[in-house]
């Protein structure tokens, strides 16, 4: 290495001093790169004066340091790819059937962890099923209340969705039948709204 040359040594010392206020890691990389450059240029026969002049003022070099580090494009993770979105959708649609409640919760957790959906879509994907179920049950309750009142049932005041079944059983039936359909609907919505990372 030609750090024996006094001019080169002085130049590098000046460069170090100029970089002293910046981050340590970057400083070493810069000094190392410049030292390599000097070695190569001298080896190809360029005179020392010329090499250092072409490199330029150490203060100018140091001024070019300390800029914001460029952010590397993140590698799309599994949850940001189509295959990941399908898994999330399947868990939300059928997770609750395979492992009740927990399966669905895993789907929702992955939904929120993924960068492939906007927050709006994530909120819809999470609350749509519970909200829709509540609305349907409430609506059916109200509807059956209206119809049974107008049909003048013998046991006045009892609301039911069918003439032969008790109320609690109807609600459960409704939820069990509708919930999977609503879950599938939510899953389809999520698949359509997915935006895979480039």
């Amino acid at each position, binding site marked *: 290495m030609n750090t024996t040359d006094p001019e080169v040594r002085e130049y590098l010392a000046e460069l170090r001093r100029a970089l002293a206020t910046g981050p340590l890691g970057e400083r070493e990389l810069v000094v190392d790169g410049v030292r390599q450059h000097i070695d190569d240029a001298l080896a190809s026969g360029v005179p020392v004066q010329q090499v250092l002049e072409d490199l330029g003022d150490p203060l100018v070099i140091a001024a070019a340091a300390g800029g914001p580090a*460029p952010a590397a494009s993140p590698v799309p993770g599994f949850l940001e790819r189509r295959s990941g979105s399908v898994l999330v959708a399947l868990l939300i649609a059928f997770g609750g059937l395979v492992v009740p409640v927990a399966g669905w919760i895993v789907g929702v957790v992955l939904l929120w962890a993924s960068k492939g959906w906007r927050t709006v879509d994530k909120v819809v994907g999470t609350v749509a099923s519970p909200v829709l179920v509540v609305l349907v049950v409430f609506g059916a309750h109200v509807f059956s209340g209206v119809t049974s009142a107008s049909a003048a049932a013998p046991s006045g005041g009892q609301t039911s969705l069918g003439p032969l079944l008790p109320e609690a059983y109807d609600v459960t039936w409704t939820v069990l039948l509708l919930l999977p359909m609503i879950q599938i609907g939510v899953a389809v919505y999520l698949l359509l709204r997915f935006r895979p990372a480039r």
Partner: protein
Amino acid sequence: MEADRLLANLRKGVVESCVLAVMRQGEVYGVDLARRLTASGVLASEGTLYPVLARLRTSGLVTTRWEESPSGPPRRYYRLTASGERDVEQFDTTWRRFSAAVTGILEETA
């Protein structure tokens, strides 16, 4: 704004991407890279390449290797990583559109 400061500001925005772009043709060693970019005016002086390279290496966009040279000291070669390739392609697209827009504005208002 005086010409020097204007030039410095413009360079700041593109110098990293230009360094990446030169590496699209294959790995390069420092002196070549510095000379080429200084000659084209993208770098103010050859030395200003090295802070840029330092940032690109820290961000994982550029990687290096040593090669023993028969006629002198071992040389460090710089080349793009996969992330670096993605970034420079993104820059290529964005730059073309943006610079066309700027040129368009200047031409219609000349």
